[in-house]
């Protein structure tokens, strides 16, 4: 029996669904469809692993929602989810003119099965017109991120319009924006780094008073810098569904979360933030792994509970996590740690670092350091299944780790997206 998904939406629901896809397209060129009993999740992660998006449509969002896992009748008797990854280039054009879709589409049906290789999207439009799109998918286990957003020291909830007004100030040439908070005020400004180096860029700043927020909690005074483009995508989505947007964050270097909670859907976008000083390496987690599976690999070998996705994982982790290196204040070491993580140094490098060669882990000491390099902390995605206790003791608290898509994280304090 194959894993399957079948759902039906009305025209206006299609518009919201399409807006979610558009927001996720700002993050990456690939989209996972991940159904579960919680609903249909859309996930995407960017190639440098510094941004992750997740939109979960609850079953009641749809007119009809049906899904199932497949059951493999072999020795492991595993339940396998639909591991469906689509290219944005294929799916985005289908949901392009959302206003006209909303007007013309009476019903939309999305159907797929893991043993077929395509997702079928049918639009039943007015005047008896029926449009059918077949989109091929690749089998790939989706990544998940565990992020304790409720444990963040700072939480701001605001109507998207205010942030949109702020973003108008910044030119598209500036990639990053800095959010600085104190209990008394919030400042959104151009990232300092850029204006120092280039004497031609305009530095802009804007203050927002605590009373403009729907919820305002600032536990620690902090300034975080993150990518602008991803924020814009989330804002557009939140404006479309007219829901306020919540920002959860702590100190620079630790990822931040942008989330939207509506009765029918839940969206979370986890973005990396610029680390302050090289010595802040303690906030950098190093479990930067890919879960990409090749189609040829048999599915069951990677989904077994108690076993990691790839046999490389344990080695990778244990080599990386050497407390001495991570806590070292020496810049060279930190750079190398980051390089091994594949996180972009200074500028965003969109290389696909999904497979970090093992050899790169070992050459660490001689990397020439540059003073005060600012780097993005990288997100960590790895396969961690419930059975596995951390075999290596991580000296620092894991802030966001990945799990595979089964219900393996039963630790209550973690929220899995």
């Amino acid at each position, binding site marked *: 029996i194959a894993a399957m998904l079948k759902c039906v939406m009305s025209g206006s629901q299609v518009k919201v669904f399409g807006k979610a896809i558009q927001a996720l397209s700002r993050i990456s060129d690939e989209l996972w469809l991940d159904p579960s009993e919680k609903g249909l999740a859309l996930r995407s992660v960017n190639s440098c692993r510094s941004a992750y998006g997740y939109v979960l449509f609850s079953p009641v969002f749809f007119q009809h929602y049906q899904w199932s896992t497949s059951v493999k009748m072999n020795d492991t008797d595993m339940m396998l989810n639909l591991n469906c990854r689509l290219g944005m280039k294929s799916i985005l054009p289908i949901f392009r003119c959302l206003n006209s879709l909303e007007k013309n589409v009476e019903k939309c049906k999305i159907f797929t099965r893991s043993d077929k290789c395509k997702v079928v999207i049918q639009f039943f439009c007015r005047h008896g017109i029926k449009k059918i799109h077949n989109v091929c998918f690749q089998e790939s286990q989706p990544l998940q991120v565990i992020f304790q957003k409720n444990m963040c020291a700072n939480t701001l909830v605001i109507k998207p319009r205010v942030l949109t*007004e702020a973003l108008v100030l910044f030119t598209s040439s500036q990639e990053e924006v800095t959010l600085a908070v104190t209990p008394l005020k919030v400042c959104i400004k151009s990232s300092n780094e850029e204006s120092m180096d280039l004497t031609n860029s305009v530095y802009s700043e804007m203050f927002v*008073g605590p009373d403009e927020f729907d919820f305002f909690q600032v536990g620690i005074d902090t300034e975080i810098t993150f990518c602008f483009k991803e924020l814009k995508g989330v804002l557009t989505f939140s404006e479309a569904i007219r829901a306020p947007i919540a920002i959860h964050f702590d100190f620079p270097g630790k990822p931040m979360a942008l989330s939207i909670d509506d009765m029918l859907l839940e969206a979370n976008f986890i973005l990396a933030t610029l680390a302050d000083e090289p010595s802040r390496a303690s906030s950098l987690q190093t479990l930067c792994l890919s879960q990409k599976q090749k189609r040829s690999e048999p599915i069951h070998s990677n989904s077994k509970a108690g076993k990691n996705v790839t046999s490389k994982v344990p080695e990778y982790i244990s080599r990386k996590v050497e407390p001495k290196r991570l806590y070292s204040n020496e810049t060279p070491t930190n750079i190398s740690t980051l390089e091994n993580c594949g996180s972009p140094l200074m500028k965003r490098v969109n290389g696909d670092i999904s497979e970090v060669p093992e050899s790169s882990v070992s050459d660490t000491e001689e990397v020439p350091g540059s003073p005060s390099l600012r780097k993005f902390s990288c997100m960590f995605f790895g396969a961690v299944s419930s059975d596995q206790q951390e075999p290596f003791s991580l000296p620092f608290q894991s802030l966001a780790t990945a799990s595979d898509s089964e219900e393996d994280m039963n630790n209550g304090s973690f929220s899995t997206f």
Partner: protein
Amino acid sequence: MKFRAKIVDTACLNHFTRVSSMIAKLAKTCTLRISPDKLNFVLSDKVANGGVSMWCELEQENFFSEFQMEGVSAENNEIYLELTSENLSRALKTAQNARTLKIKLTNKHFPCLTVSIELQLSVSSSSRVVTHDIPVKVIPRKLWKDLQEPTIPDADVSIYLPVLKTMKSVVEKMKNISNHLIIEANLNGELNLKIETELVCVTTHFKDLGNPPLASENASQDRNSEQMAEVHIDIRKLLQFLAGQQVNPTKATCIS
């Protein structure tokens, strides 16, 4: 050197924004000259084969409710700043519904024009402050002579232009056929825009345009009012000028 100015009137602010957008469309870098009574935007393109120069003058009283400046010295009470035109126009565009706009010359690590905007909040009666620091370069006094008001040469013919939008759409279509445009005008209020290629010749005629009063009497007496004076110009440069026009002029004069 000091400079601070404030705009409180929405119409003045919009007009100023449009002037700055027009400048931004014409050239990447421009010079801003600040003197006690005026603000000038100067572009001087010293390209060998015909560049575009521009001199734009604004009476500061028409725009600013407050205006204070102190030039380089008492004898040279002026400030010349070089800046990227787009930076200013973009900053001004964010001030669409502003209550007040303040501009001042500051020095934050390097000289800047700081534009400070007080925006009315849509929800409450309170306001929000937005600032932009635009980096500028102070132009030394020895270079000022190149940035003076150009003298308009004695002309054979001066004529009022037709509605610029019409002219722009005509010239835009012509651009696809030829790189050079011939402008002909006479003292009878007639203007022709002409392109000539091997295969085709296209002319658009404008009549009854009117001519401004002539500067020098001598030239007019000798001239047959029907006789056309003509110039050849680069179409793209003309289009750049026409496309940039955002400020609706009461009169646009073409002199050749």
